[in-house]
């Protein structure tokens, strides 16, 4: 059974209950207490011990059909998480087999296998997975693997007070998302759209198990506009390497042959 998250950013109120529930359930350590001075976002980014992150965007642009006392202004909030890509860069890069796809169609890092090579960190086009220096291993959202085994909703979705984070079977989530999108369009919020809902709209990742309903460009939320798993383009690099290697073989043979004549 393929499960995932549908995060509807239009109803996120930025309460960060998901961040707290995630830290509590998974017993993740704190990241130190920082004041970014940029916005209400003092979590800053996803990381090895931060598996949910709420971003806060203050825009000098009004949202369609929204009335504010401030004129041209709107708040965008989004609870970000590991996307559990259908074609996951981290999984395809992992040389140890520590990262695998589970029976729930989620991407999971086995902490007892990971040797901290750090390759997955460079392979994620979303910048999700990270290595904790003091721990030495790579960590990210497990989509609450332990809770799924007990037929429980992941902690973040359970804690979300507005149903911005919805958990469920992927097919059902896609239907729900399409219905919500239709409602928003009907109400005149034409800028609403789905990010990564399926392979057709995001071929570079084959679709995301954790997809989003956004109302602005992905870059505004710090999401790559058209993410591509690096291995999609690895063939070109391997081909170039084969050609270069042939060149080196020819140079080696040529150097040895030319040395016979007694002249360099």
């Amino acid at each position, binding site marked *: 059974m393929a499960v995932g998250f549908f995060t509807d950013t239009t109803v996120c109120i930025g309460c960060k209950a998901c961040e707290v529930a995630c830290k509590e359930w998974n*017993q993740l*350590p704190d*990241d*130190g207490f*920082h004041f*970014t001075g*940029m*916005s209400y976002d003092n979590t800053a980014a996803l*990381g*090895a*011990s931060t598996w949910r992150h709420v971003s806060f*965007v203050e825009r000098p642009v009004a949202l369609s059909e929204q009335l504010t006392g401030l004129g041209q202004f709107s708040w965008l909030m989004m609870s970000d998480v590991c996307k559990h890509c259908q074609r996951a860069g981290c999984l*395809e890069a*992992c*040389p*140890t087999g520590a990262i695998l796809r589970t029976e729930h169609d989620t991407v999971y890092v086995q902490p007892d*296998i*990971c*040797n*901290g*090579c*750090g*390759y997955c960190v*460079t*392979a994620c086009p979303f910048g999700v997975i990270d*290595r*904790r220096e*003091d721990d*030495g*291993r790579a960590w990210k959202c*497990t989509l609450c693997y*332990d809770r799924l085994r007990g037929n429980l909703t992941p902690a973040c979705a359970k804690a979300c007070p507005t149903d911005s984070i919805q958990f469920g079977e992927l097919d059902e989530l896609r239907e729900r998302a399409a219905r919500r999108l239709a409602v928003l369009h009907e109400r005149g919020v034409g800028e609403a*759209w*789905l990010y990564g809902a399926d392979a057709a*709209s*995001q071929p*570079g990742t084959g679709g995301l198990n954790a997809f989003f309903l956004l109302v602005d*460009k992905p*870059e505004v*939320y*710090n999401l790559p506009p*058209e993410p591509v798993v*690096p*291995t999609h*383009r*690895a063939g*070109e*690099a391997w081909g170039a390497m084969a050609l270069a*290697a*042939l060149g*080196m073989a020819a*140079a*080696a*043979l*040529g*150097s*040895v042959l030319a040395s*016979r004549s*007694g*002249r360099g």
Partner: protein
Amino acid sequence: MSGPDDGRYVDPELGLLLGEGAAQRIAAGEAREIWRDVAASLPAPGEGPTYYDRPVLKEPVWIWSVPVYFWTGGTMGAALALGGAAQLAGAELRPFVRRCRWVGAVGGAASAALLIHDLGRPERFHHMLRVFRPTSPMSVGSWVLAAASTLAGGAALLGRRRGLLRGAGDLAGLGAALLGLPLAGYTAVLVGNTAVPVWLAARRSLPFLFIASSMSGAASFFDLGSLRPREARVVRAFGIAGKAAELAAIAAVESEAGRVERVGRPLREGVAGALWTAAKVLTAASLAATLLPRRSRRAGLAAGLLGTAGALALRFAVFHAGKASSRDPRATFHQQRLPSCETSTP
């Protein structure tokens, strides 16, 4: 482990640490700075929005031993390839063949040590050979390095034997030579197979650069020792080809990475830019020293030192360019846009 200062605030008397992240080790009392200082840059005309200029990607966590390995692995790969070619030439180059094999064997051990030093959990280094994953250049490379080092070591030990053992050594030497070819170049595929903008952009030219630099590195390494006249001619020709190809490949990487101005910027600015320029100058100087008409011992030594420094500077330049590039959200957005496919982006 557990207690008030492990960042979890779970009283071991009252709660059990059994969560998915409970095993995460944390250095006591250390507050990690996750909001790293990033130089804010104003958007150029036509450039899109960012999220407070925060990086999209995580910076590569690799340390100095990785670029040094790029050099040792490349040098041993090219040395093994040259040794394999020299093996076919007959008895006169036999001592040189043995030397190439020893460079491969010792280089393999040094390379493994450098790579293990970089791991977050060095005691689990053998997990690298737990599976073979063709989609991961690091997995492919681990197997190639393990096999090439083993064969090179065997060939080196059997190099002076006679009869059947010598035949086995020669077979191992040829195998090591064949594996030396991908060993010199896979690291370029490895960095090209990432989301890091400058590496991803230059993925087609980087393999040429790394292999050419490996040839230059191996020739320079041999230049540091004393060579017989014919050996010196082999090394000289191989080195000239490598250094000339390296200078050409540097230009190719610059043009491939520079198709988007912002993506190629780390090769021109900062630490990476300085190292990149140093690599160019050192390699060109080494080539000039190699091309001197009357070769003295001193000129050979100079060519070797300059070439080695150039090859090392080049690997460090590529490494630091990747680090700088991953911090630039605009470069990342440029690279994560498929020209061929349209999404419903408003």
